[in-house]
Every structure is written in C-alpha cells, then in structure tokens.
C-alpha cells in the first residue's frame, strides 16, 4: 500500500494548503455554426455548446467526489466569435454574446470565453464590429468573457487596435457597476489557442473539434514547501519548487485524462500556471516573500518571480504528456491576498508589476486604476505590455479596470475568486500623441527565424 505519510501529505495539501484543480475547460469549435442569418447562427451555437458540454459540470463533480480533489471552475472556451459571426449579415454582434451566455447558463459552467478577435496584423470588418460591441456585450451578459489579441512576435503590434481597446475598456467600465465588465476583458500579445484560464480562454482556429484543457493551481502548496527550507540557498529553493510542481501537475494530468475519457473528448493540455486566490495561504506574493523579501514589490521581487516561474515549468513539464496554455506564475493583483496587501502598502506599483511580467505569465492582470484615467493612457499601458510580449516571444496581457468615480486609495470588491482591488496610481503625464499615431509597430528582428 502507498506510504501513509504520502496519503496524509496529499490530504493536507488539499485541505490545508488550498490544492485544487483551478479549471477544467472544454474547448468547442464553432466554425461550422456560421450562417448569413444571425438567428440561425446563434441557434446553432447554442445547440452545439449544449450538446458537447451538457455533461461537463456533472462529470467534473463526479471526479471531484471520487478523487477528493476540488475542481473550482468548469468552463467552456469557443472559437473567436469574430470568425464565426463574420458571414452573418448584421452590424450587431451582441446576440452572439447572448447566445453564448444562455448556453453557458444551461450547461451550468462558471464562465464561457471566446467573445474574441485576433487582430495582431489588422482588423477585418467582423473583428471591428466585434470589438465595438464589447461594452454592450459584456454589460448585457453575465458570464461571457472577451479577449482581443493586438500583437505578436511575428506580426508586431497593431497600434490602431491598441488605441481602440483603450476606448473600449473605458466604455465597458462605464457600462458596468464598479467597472466590473473589465474583469471579463483581456487584451493580449501572443495569445495562446489552448488557454484554459479566464478571461482569456478561446478555442483557437488551429484546435480540434473539441478538447479538454486543465489548469492546475497550488501556490499554497509551494509556499508550504518553502517553509521547510528557510535560509537555504536558491539551489535548494528551486529544487523544492520543482518537486512540488511535479506533484501538483501529476494530479492535474490525472484529472485531465479522466475528464477526457468520461466526456469522450480528446485531452489537450495541462496548463502549469500557479494561479492564486484571495484566500489566505494561496498567494503567489507570499511565496516571493517567503524567499526573503519583506514585501512583494521591493527590490529582488523580479528575480524571485523568475526563479519561481522557471522552477514551476521545469517541475511540471515531466509530469504531463502535453503542457500548454499560459504555463507560468500568475500575478493578478485583486485575486492574490499578498498582492492586494503589497499594493495597498504602496510597495507594489504598476511599474514594478510591469517589470515582473517580463519573467512570468501573463501580464498586468486585475489591476484597478482611477476612473479618470484617460483612454490613451490605458492604450499606452497595453502597448508597453504588448512590447514586452512581442520582443520576448512570450504571452503578455492587460486586464485593467478604470473604476468610474473612484480614485487612488479606494478599493473595489469584485467578489469570489476575483477578490478585491485597491485602486493603483498611473502616471499622469500624457501619452496621447504617442497613441494617436496609429499604424503598426513592426515585428522585431527576432521574428525572422525562417
């Protein structure tokens, strides 16, 4: 029989250290749902999602019960809707968002992602229609998530789209209470097609008919394991994280294969991200502090995060037959108890977060800024992040909430896993003339690999 100590170590990880499967996400291709008639297209979308993902939640609950491991979120990702809605003769794409919302509610999932467009090199008419509909779509649906890819290492950065997204984020904030709609909207550079995490999940056009992707979690387990190597060298720290990441990922792989078998859906990837929650003891920031930093955000934070991110990947990669998605440590401010505290204390600011995004996945995530932040300033923040992603051949993203009527020092409560966000200051100096130039920032020389 398995060693008793190992059995109780697993139980402790689940019950004391917040180990869980963060998400089982079913990707569904909607490419065959296109129709000139919007109502027909929306009907097909609803029917297809319900027929493929109707059993997703019940199957996940059975797995939770049999393995004794919580699966916190059950989600659906779909083909970017700009590709599906394109053939429909309509100027209004909001009905597509509503069809997704209804299908997701019928299936009982937590979120559905894919109200998306990929515009890194240019916008089609459909892409532009979809982007302009985002504020209304997100304010009139409950659990639909939207993502826009504005740049890539191969294509450069579409600055017209960046400028537009600054305005769209402001409009979305204005249409929803406390700017909540912006928590469901992310702007990417180098977006991945198999990401199981929200708000950025979509089922890429290069994916299969349907697929199961799994995102694991476990900052609490890593934090706990580092407490046993206090004062030891970084070599020991890295080894400890690797071993822990291996265990966490093996569990993710097991659940992914089981879900894939029961739902008769091919297994896609395990995403090795360390995803925090606002619960005490489930924080990425506290891991960095455990390495010897007084507060996350002080000097040394970027190096600590680089080590953590790398060790998680090295530990996880051997534990899964197929690794993908974003795979790295997440640093969403509002969703991480330690990040919230560090931001409140003023030690962690947007500039330091930007530096941290150079060495981890994904980017400036769940950051609340004053409601009077200009659209051009938000666009410039997106451009900075996209540049980091483009030059370093990695995914970066911006999920930012300009909270209407609120300023620095105030906090918004987003509820649940989205947590609470202290409003952080941005630079007041203007970026307007920079953003107004438009056009495309060319792809860097390292894109010429062939």
């Amino acid at each position: 029989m398995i060693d008793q100590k190992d059995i109780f170590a697993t139980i402790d990880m689940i019950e004391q250290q917040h180990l869980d499967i963060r998400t089982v996400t079913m990707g569904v291709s909607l490419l065959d749902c296109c129709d000139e008639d919007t109502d027909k297209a929306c009907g097909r979308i609803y029917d297809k999602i319900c027929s493929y993902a109707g059993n997703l939640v019940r199957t996940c609950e059975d797995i939770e019960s049999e393995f004794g491991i919580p699966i916190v979120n059950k989600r659906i990702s779909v083909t970017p809707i700009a590709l599906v809605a394109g053939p429909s003769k309509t100027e209004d794409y909001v009905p597509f968002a509503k069809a997704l919302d209804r299908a997701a509610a019928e299936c009982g999932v937590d979120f559905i992602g894919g109200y998306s467009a990929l515009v890194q090199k240019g916008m089609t008419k459909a892409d532009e229609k979809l982007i302009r509909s985002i504020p209304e779509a997100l304010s009139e649906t409950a659990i639909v998530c939207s993502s826009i890819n504005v740049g890539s290492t191969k294509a450069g950065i579409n600055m017209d789209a960046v400028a537009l997204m600054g305005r769209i984020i402001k409009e979305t904030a204005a249409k929803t209470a406390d700017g909540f709609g912006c928590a469901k909207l992310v702007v990417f550079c180098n977006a991945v097609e198999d990401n199981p995490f929200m708000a950025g999940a979509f089922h890429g056009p290069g994916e299969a008919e349907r697929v199961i992707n799994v995102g694991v979690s476990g900052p609490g387990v890593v934090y706990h394991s580092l407490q046993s190597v206090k004062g030891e060298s970084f070599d020991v720290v890295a080894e400890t994280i690797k071993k822990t990441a291996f265990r966490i990922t093996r569990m993710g792989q097991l659940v992914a294969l089981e879900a894939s078998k029961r739902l008769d859906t091919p297994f896609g990837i395990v995403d090795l991200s360390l995803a925090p929650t606002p619960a005490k003891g489930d924080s990425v920031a506290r891991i960095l502090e455990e390495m010897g930093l007084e507060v996350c955000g002080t000097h040394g934070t970027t190096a600590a995060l680089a080590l953590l991110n790398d060790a998680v990947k090295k530990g996880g990669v051997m534990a899964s037959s197929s690794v993908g998605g974003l795979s790295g440590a997440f640093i969403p401010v509002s969703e991480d108890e330690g990040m919230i505290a560090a931001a409140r204390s003023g030690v962690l600011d947007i500039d330091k977060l930007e530096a941290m995004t150079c060495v981890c996945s994904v980017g400036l995530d769940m950051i609340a800024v004053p409601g009077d932040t200009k659209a051009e300033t938000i666009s410039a923040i997106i451009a900075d992040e996209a540049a980091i992603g483009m030059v370093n051949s990695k995914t970066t993203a911006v999920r930012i909430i300009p909270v209407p009527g609120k300023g620095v020092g105030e906090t918004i409560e987003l509820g649940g896993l989205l947590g609470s966000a202290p409003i952080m200051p941005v630079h007041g100096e203007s970026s307007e003339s920079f953003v107004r130039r438009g056009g495309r920032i060319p792809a860097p020389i390292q894109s010429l690999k062939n």
Partner: protein
Amino acid sequence: MNAVITVVGHDKVGIIAKVSTLLYESNINILDLSQTIMQGNFTMVMLVDVSGANKSFKEISEALVELGKEIELTIRIQREEIFDAMHTI
C-alpha cells in the same frame, strides 16, 4: 477499482468494527489496513476494492461521511490513483 479510506480522530471503541460493517454491507473488500497514533490522533488507512460494490462511489462516500459524523471522526474515501500519481513516478 481500488480506493483509499482514511479515518482520523480521537481513539474509541469500535471504529474498525463500524467502518468494516459499513463496507461489508456495501460488498466492498478490504485489501489492506494499517492503523497508528499520529500526533495524538487515531489514524487508520484502508485500501479497499470497490469494483464489486452494491452502491455508487458517491453513495459510499456519503455513507462514510455520515458514519464519520456519527462517531465524531473524519472519514474520507478517495480513488487510489490520486496518491499514486502524486507520489510515484
């Protein structure tokens, strides 16, 4: 299909009898059993074969949790694979 049952709490008379009676009634075979006192707590680990069970896994799990409440112990049942996956290569 094998599963691991863990029982943790204050030691008292009849724990094994009550748990094994429930398993007997559910037609679940006990493959291995060990018990010890860890940090003052009674802990018992059972490896069982549930493939011939006359109830669903969920029903067995609920019955064990219910029994745990009755005798003031924490009882869990989890499929063996999760421990194998995490602790063996």
